[in-house]
């Protein structure tokens, strides 16, 4: 196992956890279990929060600022990425006060185009890498994939973990890959995609979350968006508990990114409520929470108009990019 390069000051208990394969396994299996019914009930309960008026407006703007505006299609073209970038810069052309999104998220070969379009805007360029979405390739290819995106100007890398290795209990291998990808990222921030839809249990989500954090991930991210189920509230809940507990033990704040399946303002607000009440209000910033989404942004814009104009808006009043 490679030594983690990003967390030199881990407290002794955590430093010990990553000493070797066996300690890592012991640590991950020693984490408290997650009761499925309990966590789903809690998530559903928080989902009944009723966010109105000023608090809703604040939530909409905050959510917009947290969007990683994403296109990850085989059919992506430079034109598509250019228009996505335009949308990111000015989400609602008629309303200049709309915050800009946090990032655009593209495949590595589209990074260069995105960089060009977003220069000077402060919007981050996120690129998926490491043989996204399956992660089924050699470590060498994954590292080259990462380097390719970083060299092209990506400021954030969304990597996938090797779920096969994780499910067969080779935690050390998963850990090493994350450490090495993190190294390849240089200054770029690393988001570690757990692909929770393939991990099957909340216990696994908790273990994978800690694995990602121990290996130095700046964010842990639910999904690629290519597997169903993608992000869910209870899964995000478990991941928020992980970053909260990580903070309690290390003093460091790491981020969470649910991705895939979050399409409406109502959904987004439920996630923000969870961030607020599970991780804490400090996490209500794009530095620590992101939405991986494409269609969500337009619904947020539509609801924003509804709030401001006092009547319901329609899809023709927001731009389709």
């Amino acid at each position, binding site marked *: 196992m490679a030594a983690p390069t990003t967390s030199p000051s881990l407290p002794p208990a955590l430093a010990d956890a990553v000493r070797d394969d066996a300690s890592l396994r012991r640590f991950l299996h020693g984490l408290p*279990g997650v009761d499925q019914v*309990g966590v789903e009930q809690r998530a559903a309960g928080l989902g009944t929060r*009723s966010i109105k008026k000023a608090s809703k407006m604040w939530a909409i703007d905050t959510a917009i600022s947290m969007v990683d505006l994403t296109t990850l299609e085989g059919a992506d073209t430079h034109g598509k990425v250019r228009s996505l970038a335009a949308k990111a810069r000015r989400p609602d052309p008629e309303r200049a006060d709309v915050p800009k999104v946090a990032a655009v998220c593209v495949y590595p070969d589209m990074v260069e185009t995105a960089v060009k379009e977003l220069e000077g805007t402060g919007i981050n360029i996120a690129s998926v890498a490491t043989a996204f979405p399956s992660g089924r390739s050699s470590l060498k290819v994954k590292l080259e994939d990462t380097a390719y995106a970083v060299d092209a100007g990506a400021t954030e890398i969304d990597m996938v973990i090797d779920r096969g290795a994780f499910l067969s209990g080779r935690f050390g291998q998963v850990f090493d890959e994350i450490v090495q990808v993190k190294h390849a990222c240089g200054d770029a921030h690393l988001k570690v995609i757990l692909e929770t839809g393939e991990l099957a249990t909340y216990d696994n989500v908790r273990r994978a979350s800690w694995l990602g954090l121990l290996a130095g991930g700046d964010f842990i991210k639910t999904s690629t968006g290519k597997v169903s189920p993608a992000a869910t509230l209870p899964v995000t809940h478990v991941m928020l508990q992980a970053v909260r507990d990580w903070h309690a033990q290390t003093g460091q704040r790491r981020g969470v990114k649910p991705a895939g399946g979050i399409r409406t303002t109502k959904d987004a607000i439920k996630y923000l409520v969870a961030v607020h009440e599970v991780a804490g209000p400090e996490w209500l910033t794009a530095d620590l929470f992101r939405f991986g989404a494409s269609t969500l942004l337009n619904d947020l814009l539509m609801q924003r108009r509804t709030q401001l104009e006092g009547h319901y808006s329609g899809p023709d009043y927001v731009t389709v990019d």
Partner: protein
Amino acid sequence: MWEYAPAPESRDIANLKPNYRMFIDGQFVEGAGEPLKTVNPGTEEVLAEVSTAAPADVDKAVKAARRAYDRVWGRMPGSERAKYIFRIARLIQERGRELAVLESLDNGKPIKESRDVDVPTAAAHFFYHAGWADKLGYAGYGPDPRPLGVAGQVIPWNFPLMMAAWKIAPALACGNTVVLKPAETTPLTALVLAEIIQQADLPPGVVNILAGAGDVGAAVTSHPDVDKVAFTGSTEVGKIIQRQLAGTGRKLTLELGGKAANIVFDDAPLDQAVEGIVNGIFFNQGHVCCAGSRLLVQESVADELLEKLHARVSTLRVGDPLDKNTDVGAINSREQLTKIQQLVETGDAEGAERWTSACPLPDKGFYFAPTVFSNVSQAMRIAREEIFGPVLSVLTFRTPDEAVAKANNTPYGLSAGIWTEKGSRILWAAQKMRAGVVWANTFNRFDPTAPFGGYQESGFGREGGRTGLEAYLDV
């Protein structure tokens, strides 16, 4: 910081009337008692004036119930009774929102609880028991179990509509008629239930609902023509009723107080345990007889758990019961608030360590901030007496045997909680608990199919399930 804007449910939905009358023999009538004013504990304003019963009214209600029993209900085929009871279930669902808002106004509980727990559970109880009415011969009490006659029922203020349902539904299903007295501070939803019973077209006298204070309750429970008494409330009053009924041969069931232990072992799913602890003691402001008011946590995880618990309890929103975001509503009455305050002071005086949520409290109304006492010992009053408020006492243990011994070290025995990931330990601990309901890796779950009731001084008899029918049958 993100402040949630107020999101109040409209009080207009409650269709609040200035005056409420009692329901006797199918009619809404004025009682000869001194009318009472019911107060919104969330704001301290008077909600409505309610007519109450004098002894003659109790007599009238019992006579009406007797007549209805002799002439109609006692001899009606079960299949016909069933249809009436199904109607009640449906009408409660139809008027669910109205009942929920009214309940929160009168009781002070958060609207999310009255909406998501009290009202649906009340409807479910009628729906479940309706189905029993024509199947009693299959319930294991012989081929043709007979009803008892007139049931006198007195219920508390913590779940006013739900308790009415728990009482009325099985009584009717088994063929009894009913005289019910809701609590003095929360009579409104029971009287709207009377409207529902009228809308369901139940024969006059089958259900009679009185209002008033303890004296009316005592008149109901001690009435010589009542065949069966069912009481939910304090152990103190339960004992008085049991004494009253001594030698009369009248059947009695009691659902009384509790001081439940919620045991957290070191291998528990801690985050869900925290949720369960919070739900166990802060649900319904802790006004729950089966509340998990004694937390027993294994020493090796005590600090970690307590830290998580404090953080979680700090997020509880205390305030306007009608606000959809309120987690903890108002204490039901000034009297109860005073009682909680007094017991909490004994905790301070006896040396327990008090932690109180820094949540803001409204200026008006009866509120008490969620409070957690640690370093509590079994000898302290806060570990032995039912506080019936949002106050948790935390004790620690070292071994499973010690946990069980401490959990059972109380004259009560209503409920218990167990938190551990180890299956065999769950079953072991569940077996050792001297309590009528044991929740493992969950807490405060209720269902009409699941019998509920206590050991020892928590009362006797069960409500719900096949077992609950025994209370209303002559077997």
